[in-house]
């Protein structure tokens, strides 16, 4: 009886520690990727004096940074063909939230409850701001129904966003 109680508590504590550790690694990688993504998007597409941010170049630049620290979670390109339906739903000037990403992949029956996918999104918000976001649910060891808030089973929410004014650079 005593052993069962202590062992149960020990397991809960171990899972909490493991998840926090995983979440810290993943969100730190997402932070670094968002920062790099903003730098790439601001570097302007086409020519040095272009005023068009290089939104579609962001994924190729940040994916190598994200793949490994995401520990088995798939990193998706916002501009990939398989996300066309989600793009149409969200619109051209916004990035999806973690739950919108998970709901979308849940609809495709990919991953438990849509968990295991994060999307690298870079958009112009229509008001001269470039927004880069990494959102979705990364894989974790939180069993269904135990995570805090409305977390999905076996998933940790990842939501990192940065936004800057569109760089024109020209005088």
């Amino acid at each position, binding site marked *: 009886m005593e052993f069962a109680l202590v062992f149960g508590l020990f397991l809960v*504590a171990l899972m909490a*520690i493991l998840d926090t550790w995983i979440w810290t690694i993943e*969100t730190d990688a997402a932070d670094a990727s*968002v920062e790099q993504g903003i730098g790439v998007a601001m570097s302007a597409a086409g020519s040095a004096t272009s005023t068009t941010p290089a939104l579609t170049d962001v994924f190729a630049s940040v994916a190598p940074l994200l793949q490994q620290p995401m520990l088995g979670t798939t990193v998706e390109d916002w501009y990939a063909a398989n996300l066309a339906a989600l793009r149409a739903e969200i619109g051209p000037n916004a990035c999806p939230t973690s739950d919108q990403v998970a709901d979308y992949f849940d609809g495709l029956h990919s991953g438990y409850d849509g968990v295991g996918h994060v999307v690298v999104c870079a958009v112009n918000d229509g008001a001269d701001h470039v927004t880069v976001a990494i959102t979705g649910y990364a894989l974790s060891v939180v069993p269904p129904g135990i995570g805090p808030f409305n977390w999905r089973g076996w998933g940790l929410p990842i939501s990192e*966003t940065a936004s*800057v004014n569109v760089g024109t650079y020209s005088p």
Partner: protein
Amino acid sequence: MRAGRGGRRGQRAQAAIEMALVLPIMIVIVCGFVGMMLELRAENEFQTAVDLAAQAALVPPLGDQAASQADSTYAFSHTLNPYGSESGYLSVTTPVSCEGPYLEGEIDLNAQGIPAPVTCMAQANLDFSKTPISIFWFWSIKLSTTAEAYPSHYRQCQNTSGSASAYQC
């Protein structure tokens, strides 16, 4: 019989004492670890926000101090916790502010021909008092971050005529 009942009572009491000893230690270890991870995480996010603010300060034309400050403030506030995911324990005490020759309309080159950077700094408090982690982390932590960004070698023009800058239009 009497000795047996006493023995079982003794075992239960011992188990209760052991539990009372082990449980707080486990809670402190878990809270300490979770707090440490959240602290690292918040520090990283804060640093990212200041880094991007410094980069954003270089987007407006040379010498446009108001626009540079507005852009860096926007980048800082929209990078640090834009959806409130860390509200409750990270609060900004000194909003981002940037300085450097670039903002004054000058580009100072050093001996290697590298322009002087724009330097941005901000401060925040990390306070877990509204969370269960405060069982262990009952004190607040002051975060102070500085970031530098260098003007690029192209695209920047000086507005003032007669400048000797290598970056003159």
